[in-house]
């Protein structure tokens, strides 16, 4: 399958799923009587969902008819090999865990951990001087955040339930 076709199929499936989901969800919305056409809460999202599916179908048709981009799936795979998805997944996992724990740890502890672990994740170095620099940066970052947002802007950042 060419890269263009694969891309077109992906876009179409995405549009179809999102549009279908919107139609399914809005079907249970109440009808509004007596105020003229298009006044129910479902009208506008359904119009957008219809447009989305229509555009997705057009992209699919365009992709299936396209002869210009002859790149094969294998060529695209080779290009994609230089992209590393592991750090992206790891960062998101870190965010999920630390934000979920924010209620217990408070912003400053979870923010410090997130900063420090993300720096380590990107840097990939086990040298002691790098470790110290990363620790210093993470602590410094949290101090800056505290001064700017809590002291200057006056935002109360989440505290730990253990300290309350």
């Amino acid at each position, binding site marked *: 399958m060419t890269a263009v076709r694969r891309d077109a199929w992906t876009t179409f499936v995405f549009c179809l799923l999102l549009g279908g989901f919107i139609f399914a969800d809005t079907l249970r919305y109440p009808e509004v009587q007596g105020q003229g056409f298009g006044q*129910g809460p479902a009208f*506008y999202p359904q119009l957008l969902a219809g447009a989305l599916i229509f555009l997705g179908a057009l992209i699919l048709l365009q992709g299936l008819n396209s002869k210009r981009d002859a790149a094969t799936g294998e060529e695209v795979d080779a290009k994609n090999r230089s*992209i590393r998805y592991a750090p*992206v997944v790891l960062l998101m996992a870190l*965010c999920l865990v630390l934000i979920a724990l924010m209620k217990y740890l408070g912003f400053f502890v979870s923010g410090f951990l997130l900063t420090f672990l993300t720096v380590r994740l990107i840097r990939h170095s086990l040298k002691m001087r790098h470790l110290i620099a*990363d620790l210093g940066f*993470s602590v410094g970052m949290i101090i800056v955040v505290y001064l700017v947002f809590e002291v200057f802007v006056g935002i109360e*950042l989440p505290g730990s339930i253990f300290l309350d």
Partner: protein
Amino acid sequence: MSTFDLITAGLPTFYNFYSLFLVIAGSVLGIIFGAIPGLTATMGMAIFLPMTFAMSDINGMLFLIGIFVGACYAGSLSSILVNIPGTPSAIATGFDGYTMAQKGEAGRAIGYSTVASALGGLFGVLVLMFAAPFLAGLALEFGAQEYTGVALLGISIVSYISFGSTMKGLIGGIIGLLLAAVGQDVITAYPRFVFGSKDLQAGLEMIPVMVGFFGVTEVLTKLEQEKEIKIAIAKIRNVLPSLSKLARMSPMMAVSSIIGTFVGAIPAAGGAIASMAAYGIQKRFSKRSREYGTGIAEGVVAAEAANNAAVGGAFVPMLSLGIPGDPQTAILIGALMINGLAPGPMLFATRPDLISTIYLGNVLSVIVFAVVGLLGARSFAHLIRVPRHFLLPGIMIFCIIGAYAIRNTVFDIWVLLACGVLGYLLQKIGIMPAPIILGFVLGPILEDNFRRSLIMSGGDWTTFFTRPISLVLLLVNLFILLAPYVMGFFRRVLSRPTREKTS
């Protein structure tokens, strides 16, 4: 109120040291964001938007305008020094700027870039001062049908011009419109797509969505790239440009500024297109046409005057119609909305002080970057070397706080992450974050006016075609959406006889 009164109404703001400080701080932050490749004006504005909660509406705008204007200028620094444009609008600057740097004229290239940026920026603001009130006067005649047309115009131009495939741009715009539809329906107040969540009842907050799509998506995209590239920075000497040479270049600077302002005023066109267009036109009509690209100051001046003039142009539709022309003005509209202000023609009557402050804030930001650029070019060059293992976690933390700060709720951090991941995945299939955000900002305007038009006409769709301005706007929309296909068709038809002859 006369144009002169409108320009001077905000002067007392600048008697306050704090307001002046915010413009300077914003401009310097903007220069930092613009100079570091990968960080953009949009990201800087989105990240620092929460800081404006502690400021008055006027001071908040001044701070954000400083970032916007400073970043637009500073994109040229990395373009000249390492041939990596700090912002998309500095791509054309590198054509001659980097070649000048390789010849040992990096300082001079920065000098010309700074002066051209400043003069272009001032020209853009001057046009803004006269064009925006005029357009706002016309917009007072607009009804719901016309606003529907204008909002659709914003989305279709955005989809067409700047983000690759028109259809994918439109899909992005629709996704933004759908995100804006979350929460209570504008007419019936029925909760839509809330799935039983109390947090979703009031709809998605603008900041987590914006910061998610612009900030987190960018962090994830940078994170997936292979190791950091080590870059060699050219040495900077003799920053001050020659005055006689500048005087000789003044007509071309004026032409570039006019092109930049005009292109900037077209929704979604922005500085990148403005600078490329100005560079292309100057190259085409210059006596030194063949020398463009070989390291001449004219190339730098042509691009920089245009992309900074485009900033003033971008404010025209934002202030007069309430329509964001680009992601940066979308953020400024968001900042106004947070303060309970609706940008558009009425703002000229109700808040002339704010309009004037926006004009003068732009002027002051230009002065700040000109001074900082000429005096501190050497120091800012070092910013290009900031390692990404410190940069990306720092941005991530600021994004999280930005999302949290708007309502002090962790729910908005989840929205931020969801939008960041969605933006990252959609980018993989060619749907870029900018149309999504513009759709999200335009969503309430479009839905409200579209449905009110239908209520007023009793469900008669011809209401959009029977009013002259509305009809013109819809025809322009249709033209924009069909133009690439019509042009493609004619190109194929015209090339057919040639191909037949050759075969």
